[in-house]
């Protein structure tokens, strides 16, 4: 079975544009709003949605997304409620790939086998576990293979070419290039450096490459998009949700703005 993520990237390539991957936290501020945001994001041009699975200790996140996790947790969101949310989303949308992004401990609360069974039956396409480097992912890799769920992996500016090659060989769907040394929402994007590093990465893998972490707006997206197959934007959306004013409308406008840049 070909993965929906793979299909999506090849479609986008044919259309000669870049994928817009959006990130929001599942259940931030509540599941109904998240569902509404997801649908609106798709309508405004999001190609893939990464749903952050709320965790009490989101170590790799900057303040914006940390607050998103806190808001979601206050309202009782969890891995379980995220699967429910996905089920509801899939009632009307069978096409847009959805990736669960989060931290090992919440994914393990279900266990790798149960997780993947549930993922396959609810129509999840991929997972990205931030604190699960290939060395620590034996169980999830094995079960993901069985159920055709993509494991998206991170490559950092600190990753050597040798290691990047090894990581890519255990990755599917797309490779997520972390554009800055830092946490999500960091403001120190160095486009020139990113372009160089992604150029090297391109020679090591045939997988689509998405760039994330330092992408805040149309300007930062356009500064690196040419070397990538997709751009991930997260903090900017979670910030808008946190502001709690015309959330659906503002998120829609921002999605539109970014997707137009990538066209």
């Amino acid at each position, binding site marked *: 079975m070909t993965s929906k993520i793979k299909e999506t990237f090849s479609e986008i390539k044919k259309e000669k544009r870049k994928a817009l991957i959006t990130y929001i936290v599942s259940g931030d501020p509540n599941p109904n709003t998240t569902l509404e945001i997801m649908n609106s994001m798709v309508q405004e041009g999001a190609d893939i949605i990464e749903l952050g699975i709320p*965790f009490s*200790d989101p170590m790799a996140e900057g303040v914006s997304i940390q607050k998103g996790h806190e808001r979601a947790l206050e309202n009782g969101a969890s891995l379980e409620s995220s699967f429910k949310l996905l089920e509801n989303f899939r009632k009307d949308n069978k096409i847009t790939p959805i990736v669960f992004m989060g931290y090992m*401990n919440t994914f393990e609360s279900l266990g790798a086998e149960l997780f993947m069974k549930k993922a396959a039956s609810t129509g999840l396409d991929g997972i990205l576990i931030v604190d699960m*480097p290939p060395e620590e992912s034996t169980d999830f890799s094995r079960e993901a293979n069985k159920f055709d769920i993509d494991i998206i992996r*991170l490559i*950092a500016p600190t990753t050597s070419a040798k290691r990047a090659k090894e990581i890519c060989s255990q990755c599917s769907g797309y490779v997520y290039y972390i554009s800055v040394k830092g*946490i999500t929402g960091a403001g120190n994007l160095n486009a020139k450096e990113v372009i160089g590093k992604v150029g090297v990465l391109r020679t090591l893998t045939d997988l689509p490459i998405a760039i994330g972490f330092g992408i805040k707006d149309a300007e930062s997206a356009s500064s690196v998009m040419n070397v990538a197959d997709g751009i991930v934007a997260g903090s900017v959306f979670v910030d808008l949700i946190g502001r709690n004013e015309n959330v659906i409308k503002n998120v829609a406008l921002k999605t539109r703005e970014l997707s137009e840049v990538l066209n």
Partner: protein
Amino acid sequence: MSEELMPDKNGRFGIYGGRYVAETLVPALEELSEQYEIIKKDKKFLKEFKDDLAHYVGRPSPLYFAKRWTEILGGAKIFLKREDLNHTGAHKINNTVGQILLAKHMGKKRIIAETGAGQHGVATASVAARHGLECIVYMGEEDIKRQSLNVFRIKLLGAKVVGVSSGTSTLKDAMNEAMRDWVTNVDDTYYIIGSVAGPHPYPQIVRDFNAVVGQEVLEQSESVIGRDPDLLVACVGGGSNAMGLFYPFIEKKNVRLVGVEAGGLGLSTGKHAAPLNDGREGVLHGMRTYLMQDKAGQVMETHSVSAGLDYPGVGPEHAWLKDIGRAEYEAADDKEALDAFKELTRVEGIMPALETAHGIAYVKRIAPSMTKDQSIVVNVSGRGDKDINTVASIEGIEL
């Protein structure tokens, strides 16, 4: 596998430990492992470390016979390993003295650390001052309130204290924030973790630098007790003072090892910081270990009267020692710890840290049931001066 060879090449103690971090940090941790393997065999480094322990820290620390307390409890002889007499007042300095040399060897210019009770913050700020390195200490806002004395000490030592108000505003959140700093400044920054916790190789490094405590007890037991002690006791938060004491004794199966966790308001209330007693396997701060967590895998808020034990995880080697049955883990609650704090102060004229008092409380419980020819060594991991505000406010006394 023999415990002496732990951790294995993947940084695991059995199923525990490992390196559960975002990719940005994996290469940094690999480099740290490589450099540590080099330096720990380097004669010049070993001499410098030993000299610093002798002349800066003031080692060896005494193994003191608590005669009056022994008589009062009426059972086993009790010996106190006096880590409270170290420079800066706790065992924490042993590790920072070692790690700052490693940081310098690696050419790092900026030092960061997390702290709960503030003892590790003080110990890190002290060695950073001595080596002229910039130092930033992350500390939960809750802990800043209850350990104001140590906050001021850290500032006097020239380090910057950064308050952390995310999550529960305690040690675990300070560690999250230190990790975020490290990932951002990974090129020039060295992160001195203060416990036998975190991703590999930290649990190993911190254990090795604290193992001097157990090595001294091994030697001192011969002259002071005349043979091996029957029981070693230490409090366990992350578990660095306990690991330092236990490690050289692990192959000595005749010596019982007991770690004492923070029972908070009581194990049955759920308001405690005793993951080895009442937690389950999970992943936090780069390691697989026992964790206080709910069914959904969210890390739970912990409770302890002592800021230094107020941590939902525990060093992975302790998790392993528990599972293989080599060490036992008990808990002492807030009230027992406070009583023990007062008792040791009045009976021996030694005021222990509230963290240490948890180990003291267990000794109070167990010593009377042992015979007079048996002996217990308890690690007085730190002195209690930093806690007088906490104790006073519990008693309703305004200082």
